[in-house]
């Protein structure tokens, strides 16, 4: 055990020559126990890592629609986040005149990421419109925003489903929110 060496108390009182051999040893074990208990407690309760965050900037809502720039159909890619983690996408704009070709994919490496990488290479100013359906999960939204970061796509927007998109999804998959 830990010990404290007794000090030589040679100069005792009363001229006694014999040094008194009183041991000054203290049993430090309880103190050490307590110290380690506290150490363990604080180590376990401390949260070191601050949570990770993803920054999102939403556009300021324009008061005047004239001030907004029109999106070119050749640069647009719409990604629809369906039910059960499904992803659908089409190129161009769905304005009701011509029906774009809706394709289905998923969140895997070879899925939407490959699509975004391929299109990003051919269309430099690719703008992605992200439209989650009502039955999609929050996880899907975060995942697709993450894919935007991974594929270096800088122009993207989170928008709501239009009626035309719902109709398109319904004609292709048979349900308004995907299979």
């Amino acid at each position, binding site marked *: 055990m830990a010990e404290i060496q007794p000090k030589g108390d040679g100069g005792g009182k009363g001229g006694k020559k014999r040094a008194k051999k009183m041991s000054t040893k203290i049993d430090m074990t309880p103190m050490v126990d307590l110290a380690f208990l506290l150490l363990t407690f604080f180590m376990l309760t401390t949260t070191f890592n*601050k949570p990770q965050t993803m*920054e999102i900037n939403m556009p300021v809502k324009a008061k005047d629609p004239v001030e907004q720039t029109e999106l070119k159909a050749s640069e647009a890619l719409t990604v629809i986040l369906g039910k059960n983690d499904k992803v659908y996408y089409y190129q161009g704009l769905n304005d009701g005149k011509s029906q774009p070709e809706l394709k289905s994919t998923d969140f895997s490496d070879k899925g939407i*990421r490959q699509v975004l*990488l391929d299109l990003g290479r051919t269309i430099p100013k690719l703008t992605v419109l992200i439209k989650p359906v*009502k*039955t999609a999960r*929050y996880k899907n939204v975060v995942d697709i925003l993450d894919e935007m970061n991974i594929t270096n796509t800088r122009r993207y927007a989170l928008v709501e489903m239009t009626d035309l998109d719902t109709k398109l999804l319904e004609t292709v998959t048979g349900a308004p929110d995907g299979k």
Partner: protein
Amino acid sequence: MPKVKVHRTSPSLDMTPMVDLAFLLVTFFMLTATPSQEEKLIVDTPSSISEIKLPEKDVITITIGSDNRVFYGVDGQPTRLSLLDKMGAKYNVSFSEEERRTFELTNSFGMPMAGLKSYLAMAPEQRKKITQPGIPFDSVKNELGDWVLQTRLTNPDVVVAIKGDQSTDVPTIQRIIEVLQEKKVNRFNLITDMEMKPSNYKPR
């Protein structure tokens, strides 16, 4: 049989350096510890490759559970106090000194204004037990917007962080983003878990 030689010197060893180190570590952890906050709503956040850390202070945390209940929390005890006073004045609820003290120490709550006073007046064990209904955020009774607005008036530096569960509905999230945009908050953080970067990732 060989004779076992009894070692006569005492097996005591000098523990002083170990104890020194232990106390040094205790002191270190005591001073750096921010006690892990007690979560009233358990949320499993989605993961992302983002490495941006949340700021240490001035954060509004809007927690959304998988059952679409919304909890509100802000850090900084002076901010909380003046926020409660402002909200009380707006909704004509007066809080006693005790209730204000309780609110000062509450890091996240999900009570509508009507039930907040009785919630703060409860005993701590009782407060833990009841299920909080969440803060109303629909267009008829938009208390969440008021909380955000009043917090921003109290402390203009606050950052809004949304902590949503993986299986939260998208319409709920969209509605909360809408509430924030109504209050001119166009920049906010989504709290996520860490995820490994894929190998083909190229940083900007």
